[in-house]
Structures are given as C-alpha cells and as structure tokens.
C-alpha cells in the first residue's frame, strides 16, 4: 500500500531546500505539465512540495544581468515592460504558450525542468546564452541552459535539486532576435518545429558580429545550430549565404516522426522558419 502522501507549502526557500533533503517530494510549480502528465495516477506523485508561497522564487530582475526567477509565469514574462521592449522575441515566445489560462499558471522554470524538446522558452533563452541556477541543500550549481537538457523529459537536475532562476546578459543594443513557432493551430498548439535567432550586428551595421540559433522540436533536446552560426558569423548582410546556411542547418537537426508531424516536414519547414527568423531579426536590428 502507498504511504500517506504529505503536502508541503513552505514560504522560505531554505525550508523548501531542507524539506527536499529530508523527504522524497514531487515539486509542483504551475502544475500544467505535472498534473496533465499524471492526471489518471495522481496518487503516484506521492508527497508534494508546492512552491507557490516562496516569494524568493518569483519575479524578474533587470540589472547587469537579467534574472528570471523560476515561478515567473508566461503571462508575466509576456507582459514585463523591459522584456517587451528589449527582448520582444522572448515575450513573444511566452505569448505562444498554450492559452491565457495556461500562461497564467505555467511557469518559466516548469517549462525548462519539464525538458520537452518543444518547450517554447528554451530556444529564445538558449539563444540568449542563458544559464540556470540550480540549488540542492546549500550547494549551488550554474549550468548553461544549453547543457541542461539530456533528452525528452530528462535533464541534469538531480533529485532534491531546485531550479532557482534563469540568468542571461542583456544583449547589446545592436542585437535583435526573432522566434517563430509552427503549430497546427493558432492556440493550444505544441510546436512541430520552432526557431529562435539572435543576431548582433557589427558597429558598421553591415556584418553579423554574432549570431545564435536554437531550434525546438527537431531533436531530443532543443538544438543549438552551431555550425550554421559559424557560417554566418561575419557574413555581410548584403550577401548572406542563405542557401548554404539552410543546407548546414538541415544537417544539424535530427527531427523524428511523431503524431504532430513527420521528420521530413520538420526538416523542410525548419529551414523556412530559420530563414524567416533570420531576415526578421536583421530587419529589427536595422530599425534600432
């Protein structure tokens, strides 16, 4: 027989970390992944750690670095004035998640820890070179978000370890990003393929000084297209090697067939949305 499940809802982060050391607990943030995945077997979740009262895990801080605390909801991210102004593509990605209900409950941290290759926040955050702060007891680790994911539903997060925040440097003024997601319908659609492109133009505005590209849903984890980036690094805006870039990109991704689409479709359309995202990012860059 199962033991009686317990429900903890501490308000201090330290207490939560202690509880995690002491008990085997399932962490719940918005529950939009957890409860859906387990809705016919909720007792199997066992004892619960509800983080919703931990204020230290909420909010967005903007300074030399930007910190998005784990409990920040998609709706908050989407509406945050600084994010909206400086990183509209990240706000847009948050706005692509599910529906208003899901965006009001679902959190940035949950989106990451759930480790779906289709998670909408992963590509833009990886393109921002984000790092995640993980804490277990008194020990803190900082990992590149790109290295956080191991496979569908799998990450480097250890038992009893919490994701505290995602942190990245605000990109320079000459940078602009774009996120494009392809889903089967306009809302409540999991990405069939998605891409985030962040470009930073050189001071003369003619060359790409830096570029980061990350795709979702085209492999077991979000995929950073490093070879494509390398090709485009230093490329001139007037003479972009787009065809070659698409060819390389195609080889960098490893999509699969699933109920939402075939590998072949993903392969083809990923190139299209990459090209569109790049052009849009360049166009945004120009505006500034």
């Amino acid at each position, binding site marked *: 027989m199962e033991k009686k499940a317990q429900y903890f809802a501490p308000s201090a982060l330290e207490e939560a970390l202690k509880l995690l050391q002491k008990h085997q607990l399932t962490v719940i943030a918005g529950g939009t992944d957890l409860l859906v995945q387990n809705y016919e077997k909720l007792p199997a979740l066992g004892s619960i750690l509800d983080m919703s009262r931990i204020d230290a895990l909420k909010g967005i801080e903007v300074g030399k670095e930007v910190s998005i605390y784990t409990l920040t909801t998609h709706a908050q991210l989407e509406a945050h004035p600084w994010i909206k102004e400086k990183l509209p593509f990240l706000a847009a990605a948050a706005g692509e998640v599910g529906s208003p209900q899901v965006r009001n409950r679902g959190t940035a941290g949950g989106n990451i820890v759930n480790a779906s290759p289709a998670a909408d926040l992963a590509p833009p955050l990886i393109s921002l070179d984000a790092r995640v702060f993980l804490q277990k007891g008194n020990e803190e680790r900082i990992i590149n978000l790109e290295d956080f994911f191991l496979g569908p539903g799998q990450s480097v997060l250890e038992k009893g370890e919490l994701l505290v925040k995602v942190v990245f440097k605000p990109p320079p003024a000459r940078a602009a990003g774009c996120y494009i997601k392809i889903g089967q*319908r306009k809302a409540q659609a999991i990405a069939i393929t998605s891409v985030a492109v962040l470009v930073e133009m050189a001071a003369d505005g003619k060359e790409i000084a830096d570029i980061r590209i990350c795709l979702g849903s085209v492999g077991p984890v979000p995929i950073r297209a490093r070879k494509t980036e390398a090709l485009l690094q230093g490329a001139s805006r007037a003479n972009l090697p787009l065809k070659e870039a698409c060819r390389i990109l195609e080889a960098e991704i490893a999509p699969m067939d699933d109920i939402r689409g075939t590998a072949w*479709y993903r392969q083809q*359309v990923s190139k299209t949305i990459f090209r569109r995202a790049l052009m849009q990012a360049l166009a945004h860059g120009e505006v500034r």
Partner: protein
Amino acid sequence: MSKVTGRARFADDLSFHGMLFASTVYSQHPHARIKKVDMSKAMDIPEVLAVITPDDVPGSNGVMRGFLVLAGEKVKYVGDGVALVVAKSETAARKGRDAVVVDYEPLPPVLSIDDALKSGASLVHEDKEDNIISKSRYQLKKGDLERGFAEADFIVERTYETQFVAHAYIEPEVVIAVPDFNQEFMTIYGSIQNPFSARAAVAAALGWSVGQVKIVQNAVGGTFGGKDECAILNACRAAIASIKTHRPVKLSLSREESMVEGPKRHPYRFNFKVGVKKDGSILAMKSELIAQGGAYNNKAQFTNWRASIHATGPYNIPNIETRVFGVYTNTIYGGAMRGFSSPQCIFAQESLMDEIAQELDMDPLELRRKNALSPGHTLPDGQLLGEGGLPAPLPDIIDNTARKFKYSKPAQPQEGSVKKGIGIACGFRGAGLGAEAGADATGAIVTVQSDGSITIVSGLTDNGQGLKVAFSQIVAEVLGVSLDRIVYPTTDTSIIPDGGPTVASRGVMIGGRAMEKAALEVKKKILVVAGEILQLDPEKLTIENEEIFSPDNPEKRVSYMDVVSRAYATGQMLAALSWFSTGVPEFDYETGQGKSYPTYSWGMVITEVEVDTETGLVKVNRALSTHDVGTAINPAAIKGQVYGGYVMGQGMAVLEDIEQANGFVKSKNFDEYLIPTAMDIPDIDVLIVETGDTYGPFGGKSVGEPGTEMAAASVANAIAQATGRRIRNLPCNLERVFLGYNLTRQGTAR
C-alpha cells in the same frame, strides 16, 4: 441557459445511495481470439465486488445489429469490452480493471477498405461471408449513363477520401443504472442521444420487456449523433452490473475510453467518373462510394442510403448511377455524426466540381450556376422541382451568396509565399429521415395544468441544439400564451410512445409538426370551453395574448386563465397526445427513384483562406454560410447552429483525424486530437433564405446539419485554389498542404 451558468446537472453529477462504480476491461488487440479471462487478481482487491463477463449477460449479449455488450470469443477492435469490473470506488474499479488478465491469440487485422476487400482477407465477423456490411448496399439509377458518357466531350475521373472524425463532445459518456427494489424495473440515467434505442438495447440485454426499462436523459454535454452505440453498450453493462450486485452502478468513461470505444464519422472513398460537355453541362456521373464501417455497424445502412441520394450533388445531371456499400474493419467504427455522410459526400462532390471547372478553365461559381438544380428539373430521385413540385432556390442562393460575399476569383498567380484562395460549396439536404427507414413519425404531448402552466413532452430530445426553445415557441404561438407558461421536462421514455431517434435534423421538422398538432388540438379544446363562457361559436374564436375573443366582436372576451379554471371545474381535459407521421414514402430501393425525402434544404458556403505555401499553414479568414430554412423560427438559434457547424466542418477540413497505427488509436485526447480553438474561428456570416416551404411547423426546415455539411468542402476548395494543388483526402493538414500529399499514413507517400 443552465449550462452557461453551471447549474445544469450532468449524469456524472448524480449519485445514488449505495452506488457502485464500474470500469471496462478493453481489448489489447485490434483482432484476436480471447483464450482466457483470469479475474482472480481483480477479485482479490477488497473493494472489487464483481467481475462481469459475457456469461453474466442475462438476456442477449448481441444488441444493435451485432454490437456486443461484452466480447466473449474474439475482439474485433481495440474498443471492445471484454469484462466489467464493479467496485465500491472508481479508483478500485480501475485497479480491478488493470488486474484482469486476458490471454489473447492475435489474428491478422483488417485495417483499411483495401484490406477488407482483398481476396482471402480475414473476416472481421466470422459468421459472415465477406467483410461487406450486409444491407449497406444502395444504388440510384437515373437516365442512361452510357449514353451520357457517349455524348460528353470529355470524361473526368477522380478519387477522394475522408477520415475518421470525432464528435469531440465536451462530456464523455456517463450512465448510471438504478434498479427498482420492489419490482423488475431499471432506470438508466445518462448522456444518451436516443433514449428509445437505449431502452430497446438495455431491455434486450436484460431479457426484459421494454416497458421494464426507463431511460432518463440528463443534461447532455454535446452529442452530435455520437452518444449512441457506445453510450448504450455502457448502459447495458451498467444495468447488468446493477442486476448482479443489486446496487446502482455508474459507468463514467474517461476521455481516452470515449475516444477509443465510441463511434466516429465514417471515412468514405469516392470513385467518380463524370461526362462533361465543353459548355460545362454535366451529362453523366457514375459514382462508387465505399464507407469504412469499422468493427461493428449500426448506421452504415442509413448513412449509405442518404449518401446514395446525395452523392452527385445539387446539380441537374440527367444520367446518374450511384453505388454505395460499407465494409467492416478491425478499427474504431463509424456511427452517426452531424451530417450523416453528407460532409463527406459534399467534400468529394464539390472538390470534383472545382476540378471540372479547372479542366474547363471556367469559374467554379459559373459551373455551379450552370448546373444548379432549378425549377423544372428533377432531383436525382426523380422528384420534380418548381411549379407543382418542391422549392428549388439554389440558383438564387448562388447569386445572392456570391453578391453578399463580393465573390471574385483571386488573380493568379499571386506574389509571395502567402496566397489567398476562395472556395465554394453548394449542397442540398433531404430533410428528416425520409425513406431511410419507412415512415418518419413521432409524438408530442401538450397538457394545460390547472394553474395555467403547460407541460410539453416530445419523443425527441434536446441535445443542446435548442429543441426545447423551438418546441416551446411553437406551443406558445399556437395557444397564444406567454412563453413563460411552458414547462419542458427532460425526456422520459415511460411517458410517451417511441418516437424514434433525434437525428437527421428531424427535431423541428417532424417533432415540431407533432408538437404543433398537439397544440392545435389543445387549442380547439380551449376554444370550446371559451365558447361556453362567451356563448359564441368556438369555430369563430381566436386566442391572442392570453385572451380569447371573436374577431367579429372583440369586445367580448375571456382570459386564458378563466378558461383553464372553468375547464378544470367542469371536468374537461385540456391535453392532447398527437402523432405526426410522414407515412410510408413511395420509393424504389432498386433504382433510388421516388419520394426520397418530403423536402430538401438548400445552401451554399463561400470561404476565404490564406495559405502559407512554405509551411502549409492555413488561416481561414472569413466565410459566408447561406441556408434555406423554409421559415426562420428562431434566427438567433439558426445562426448559433451555423457558427458551430461551420467550425466543425473547418476542423474536418484542416485538422481533425483520428490517427491510428495498426488498429491502435493514437490520438486519444485533445492534446493530440486537435479541433479548432476560438483563435482559429473565422468571421462567419450567415445568410438566411426563406422559401416558404410548407413542410415543417410554420414552414420550418432543418439547419442543424446543413450548418456543418458544406464547410469542409469550401475550405478544401479554397486551399486548392490558393495553392494550385488539389488535396483529395482529408484533412488538409500542414503536411498535405505543404507537400500536396501526405507522409504520415502508414509511412507511405500518397
């Protein structure tokens, strides 16, 4: 209204003292022999009280033309129930279900129409000679097909296919069987579309007479034709469990169970051969339709008959030969779903019209206008249109719809990767059951109570489509009383004679006629009593605003309430049970000629889409849906039906498809079976056309199904026009639109 405020109580909200919960053990194979059912582990669970197998069925295990309450010898699809676990809690019932061990010997499954027709195919039903559904064959013959082809300038041949589509009702099936402890009597509460069909099946399964079973329909959270075979089988299971345990038993399906076990829209394959003249006139059309019935069949004989009449569309084609049949497969099965084969037929037929127009380099609108059935023409069944016949508004509908939509063919070719397309679909729909199953008949009871309130009972059910309101309006109108007086209790099979199922948009047409008749009889009785009071000839009296008077002498009047009081005081009955029947229609089933339906509804839909040709994304921008409704009894309700109907068709066109792999259902819930969301819905405009058809009550005709049947075709045509590529099998999902064909089905390009 109670559904909007949350006050409505659904079957799952009900609870009875001592109620038990049941859970069905479903098949693990699409086709397999059952070697052994070991229930010992389930019975070891303390809260489990019984495990029921076919041996426990007291009456007939076979119900509804071959469906099995529980499969005993072999399973024919993954939704077959093998055993039923009854327990004190839902959790224990599910645990018990998982603990039942069934030993199977897998058999080669028949998964497609082609599989079913292959020589040497394994038999889905071993007691049958082949996989063809008996009684599912129909044909319609008009004119001389060969001559028509000979006179044609060219011949077009095309094949189209449609998919399994789910009703996607928000409430899965729920039934509760409550035994009567004083006599052999069983009451079933449930979300059941057709209480009388349910009563017959439950009585048969129990081995009782139908009078010993009463079905009480609760608020229904959507059905669209679907809360039928699956809901009824579950009612049978719950009833048997209830007999065995002497307790009320609830069976509440999860979404996944409902998706796997329940009926779907039949997939059809259409093979067309058409002979056309250079000027666009269609001389001859041969069509062969094959329906994929799935593991069991209760409806293909009806959907197919309807298809046989409608397959060639609302066009004046002098020479027609239509053949239709259905096949069994080891898959989920087809049942009734809003439209009842017409959305499939119209998709195929209207795609074909566009392809003919393309061959002729003619505007698709003009081709339809040229061939539209018009006064003086005869319907495919031979009935005359126009003067002395049935209304034929299609030519006007085409003109008016095009004008209102500001139709013009978008210029080709278009710049850029996002392309616009406009698609047209026309349709006609035989109203009611027609000659589908003999006479179309149903009853109504109208009772004036002593306090002046009026109880109305229909043999048909309000499944959310607004019958309550329509019937109440009809009675209030006839009796000249306020709508507030009308009380419409939930349908109860023990009160009124079996009036058939609420299907085929017959609610208002047939049920409304019965209601109108009953109200007229009651009116007569009211006038007789009023005549006594006023000392006037009842024949000369009328009722208006609850006052009865003679128009000749309007000063002398008496109120409705005074009449009611007097009737009760003097022992006069102000009630009537009336029956309306179309009579058995004259119809030749060999040739499909005769009075197929008493009248038809006509319509047209135009849709504008934007297609991103580099991703396959389709955005439906706007649509205009035109419907001949006879007389619009409730315009707001008509629009509501059309909005919802359009979106169902839109889903069928671009999204919806029950994914199956080797007979197993992959899309079991709404995260994988996608329907349009509020964000996907276009601007939908409705144009109501009144033809003064005299058939229904106050001339009303059906709109429940016309509202959905043309939408998918118009969307598909719009997509084809935008991309220049015709997708001949639905849905036009991302990949098909992007590629022009599909990659996912069985991994092969089609």
